[in-house]
């Protein structure tokens, strides 16, 4: 295990290094001059030169890359051009909101996807199987921004069952202000016992979380089905059938746990994907997360901010993958032996 752990950690670090270089390379391709964007259109030549010096744009590229890495490691992720605040602070504020949204969506996705996958495997080749397979393919084919608009129009603007946009009712900030600990609104409201904000947040979460949940629910259902079918054709399932266990028991009591391992690995992949998919949903529901921040940054060609978002999500993906690999070792002893 220690050898495996060290090798896996080294690999992850190497990927993070590559991610930083690639982000830097993409950002240096920007045709618009970041100094111009920062100093404004009416800046004098002297102010421009000043801004260029401030951003180190006059240095040779390797020096710029070195400075970039040094600053990142020192915790300086640059200054956003449009909020004029440190990018790290902006991300620190926006990320928990995205995490809240995607977390809720993944819970929904697992709660729906796993039982559907079990049902499909149980009735393989019959009607329940076909309908689960078709609907999961439909779920991964739907354009999220369109689904978000449709649900918003029907259930929020039209029927008025859910709020149209935002994370919670802003007027509650006056009547029952929220103390921030984790920056995740629902969690903070829960631990401080702030019920008005908690219920408001939950009702604001429903629609966007459902939209984001569509894709992971579809993939989880497909993966659960495939893994269960494979697992229940192994020797142990034959023995269990011979002992008189019914097909449902063979699937849920004996095959489910080993079959969930690939599903777990999938979640890491789907997590980062859902964060980015959430960008589109956040834009529609005006959710104050990374997506809205990214959209604002894109509009103002805010290079440091875009680099920050890109880097954060990529590193998150690497960490999630690493966590799942290690977690799988804990859950499934067979992985450790490899």
């Amino acid at each position, binding site marked *: 295990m220690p050898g495996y752990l060290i090798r896996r950690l080294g690999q992850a670090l190497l990927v993070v290094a590559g991610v930083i270089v690639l982000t830097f390379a993409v950002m240096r391709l920007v045709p618009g001059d970041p100094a111009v964007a920062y100093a404004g259109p009416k800046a004098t030549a002297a102010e421009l030169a000043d801004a260029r010096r401030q951003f180190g744009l006059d240095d040779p590229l390797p020096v710029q890359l070195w400075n970039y890495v040094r600053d990142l490691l020192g915790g300086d992720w640059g200054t956003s051009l449009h909020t004029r605040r440190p990018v790290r602070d902006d991300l620190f504020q926006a990320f928990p909101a995205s995490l809240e949204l995607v977390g809720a969506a993944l819970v929904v996705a697992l709660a729906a996807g796993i039982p559907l996958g079990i049902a499909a495997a149980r009735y393989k080749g019959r009607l329940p199987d076909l309908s689960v397979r078709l609907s999961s393919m439909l779920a991964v*084919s739907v*354009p999220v921004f369109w689904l978000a608009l449709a649900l918003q129009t029907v259930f929020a603007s039209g029927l008025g069952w859910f709020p149209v946009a935002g994370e919670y009712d802003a007027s509650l900030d006056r009547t029952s202000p929220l103390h921030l600990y984790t920056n995740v609104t629902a969690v903070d409201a829960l631990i401080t016992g702030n019920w008005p904000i908690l219920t408001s947040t939950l009702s604001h979460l429903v629609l966007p979380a459902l939209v984001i949940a569509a894709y992971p629910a579809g993939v989880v259902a497909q993966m659960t089905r495939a893994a269960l079918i494979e697992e229940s054709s192994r020797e142990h399932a034959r023995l269990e059938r011979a002992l008189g266990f019914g097909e449902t028991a063979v699937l849920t009591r004996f095959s489910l746990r080993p079959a969930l391992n690939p599903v777990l690995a999938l979640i890491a992949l789907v997590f980062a994907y859902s964060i980015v998919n959430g960008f589109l949903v956040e834009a529609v529901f005006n959710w104050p997360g990374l997506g809205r921040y990214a959209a604002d940054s894109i509009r103002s060609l805010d290079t440091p901010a875009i680099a920050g978002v890109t880097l954060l999500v990529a590193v998150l993906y690497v960490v999630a993958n690493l966590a799942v690999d290690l977690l799988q070792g804990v859950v499934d002893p067979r992985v450790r032996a490899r």
Partner: protein
Amino acid sequence: MTTPALPVYRRTPLRRLAGVDRLAVAGGVLLGIVVLAALLAPWIAPYPDDGGSATHPLESLLPPGGDHWFGTDQVGRDVFSRVLFGARTSLFIAVAVLAVSGAAGVLLGVVAGYAGGWARDVIMRVTDVFLAFPALLLSLALAVVLQPSVTTVIVAIAITWWPWYARLTASVAASVSTRGFVDSARCLGVPAPLIVLRHVLPNSLTPVLVQLSLDGGGVILTAAALSYLGLGAHEPTPEWGLMVQQGQSLFTTDWWVVTFPGLAILVTAFAFNVLGEGLRARLAR
């Protein structure tokens, strides 16, 4: 002596084959319809000029009816005609991305798989880095940097897409390279590039081809998302994601402007997914 009859398992042969094929066939037919719509758009669209920059201010925002099956948009263009022309844009992007990233990925993958050793390590570490960026994220960053256009969308998505094919091909090519006929070729003194191209490559292609058909839907969705964010196609190009973005403020009053382009994305991505899924199930058997 007679051979005892082989046991017959009800769940195996014909029924399963038929079921699997039906899925692939259904996906293929659906995709075929979309392709036909794209190819024949100039002839079957009721208002071919509306695929471009034509405007009919007097006919703006008409609801669906006999003259305009899908209604008309803000400037009076026929939404049905634009959806048909939009199929051209989307399929063109999908084919271009899959061709470029498929070719690049397969080439790198087959080299990595055959060569092994440090060449494989280097190529695989590079794909690791690219895979750490969810496709839409890196495309977003790239699309901001490049000027918004259909070409930008193709370039941005292709850059994020090739590593999948490189990995898949590398693992298949590695196992193909250990087979007898490759050894024989080597012993006969066939030069390495020729072995890779003539012997390893053709035998490593099937899984990639299936994956390509599965990925068509993903490319279409990503491209539509980029255009929706204003980073891809722009007016007057008929593009489904762009049409949704332009009509989104009208959703509550004039639902058809947004609904039909969105459905077109859904149907096309679905067709790719069903086809790919059917092919994959066949391959897995």
